[in-house]
């Protein structure tokens, strides 16, 4: 089979079977793109994930573009990206129209009353796992640090609180907050490298 068509079909399948997106896709990509098709090697996977996380956009799109490019250049990346996006697009285009039509029916309204509370719980759950995954020292260890080490160890916590407060109370835009925190992160990271190299 033509490799571009194969990329499109493979990523269409991956897109159609990953609910919740993002990390749910990783095992599927590993199996299809690495083990079965050999477009990337198994050892590429951690690198691809690291890059997907440190570049903008959904992880699913980033992975698809990357694998497509590795397998068949720019046209390959177009095929893989289109493939991974198309299932969501088609399903939502269909469901969205239904949702807009039926959302004022009493049972639907009642169901969504419960669903909104459930969704909030899922978001809080995601928040907890993002907090856990964010690289930082334990709070008890932070308090034992002194001087510049204390400043560096406390920084992730300080940035979380600052970002929260700036959006919540100062009504700054998320983009401004992200830019600010990226700048602070960069400066302190270079500063901490300088300290350890000395």
């Amino acid at each position, binding site marked *: 089979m033509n490799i571009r068509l194969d990329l499109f079909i493979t990523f269409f399948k991956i897109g159609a079977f990953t*609910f*919740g*997106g*993002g*990390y749910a896709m990783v095992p599927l990509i590993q199996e299809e793109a690495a083990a079965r098709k050999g477009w990337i090697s198994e050892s590429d996977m951690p*690198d691809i994930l690291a*890059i997907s996380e*440190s*570049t*903008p*956009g*959904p*992880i699913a*799109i*980033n992975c698809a*573009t990357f694998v497509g490019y590795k397998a068949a250049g720019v046209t390959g990346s177009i095929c893989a990206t289109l493939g991974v996006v198309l299932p*969501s*697009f088609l399903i*939502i*285009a269909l*469901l*969205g129209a239904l*949702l807009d039509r039926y959302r004022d029916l009493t049972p639907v*309204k*009642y*169901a969504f*009353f*419960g669903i*909104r*509370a*459930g*969704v*909030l*719980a*899922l*978001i*809080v*759950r*995601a*928040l907890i796992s*993002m907090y856990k995954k964010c690289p*930082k020292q334990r709070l008890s260890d932070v308090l034992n640090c002194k001087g510049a080490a204390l400043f560096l160890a406390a*920084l992730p916590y300080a*940035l*979380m609180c*600052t*970002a929260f407060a700036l*959006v*919540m109370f100062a009504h700054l*835009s*998320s*983009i401004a*907050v992200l830019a600010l*925190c*990226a700048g*602070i*992160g960069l400066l*302190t*990271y*270079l500063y901490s490298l300088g300290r350890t190299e000395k």
Partner: protein
Amino acid sequence: MTLVSLFFMFFKIGLFTFGGGYAMLPLISEEITRRGLLSAEELTNFVAVSESTPGPFAVNIATYVGLHTAGLAGSVCATLGVVLPSFIVILAVAHIYEKFRRSRVVAGIMSGLRPAVVGLLAAAAVGIAKTVFFQSGFVLSAALAASALIFALILYLSLKKVHPIKLIILSAGLGMAVMYTLSALGCA
């Protein structure tokens, strides 16, 4: 809202969200509710739809908002907009990915962005909590207590790693049970 401005709004959302899943939520809710494209309640409803359908949240919400505001052409423009920044950046990085991976500048920027995203998502969660717990049109006390209970139960189950789709179905069932009971009792 024109097709071009839909495209650029989602291009901006795609360009400035790092990390998967709900990392997109703060920026999306800011852009979408500020422009009145969806209410906070409609957005929360849609998160449930997105959780129960395949594909990344960003693509789902772009398709839906595009459809909602400008029909099928709108959904194509919004989806293209949200996808293109990732696509372009990855193509650029794919050439130099060894360098990119070891870059101190990238590592430094990420060390600032990761905690920031946690703070932003917390702020978005507070915003959503307001719409969940203080919905207009319901008698506050009974419905509020019911929402709080459903929230606590679903959070507990999700921490026990029950699948999100099952949890959404369960919360839909609980929502109907509660609201039909409340309206039968005459307090909703």
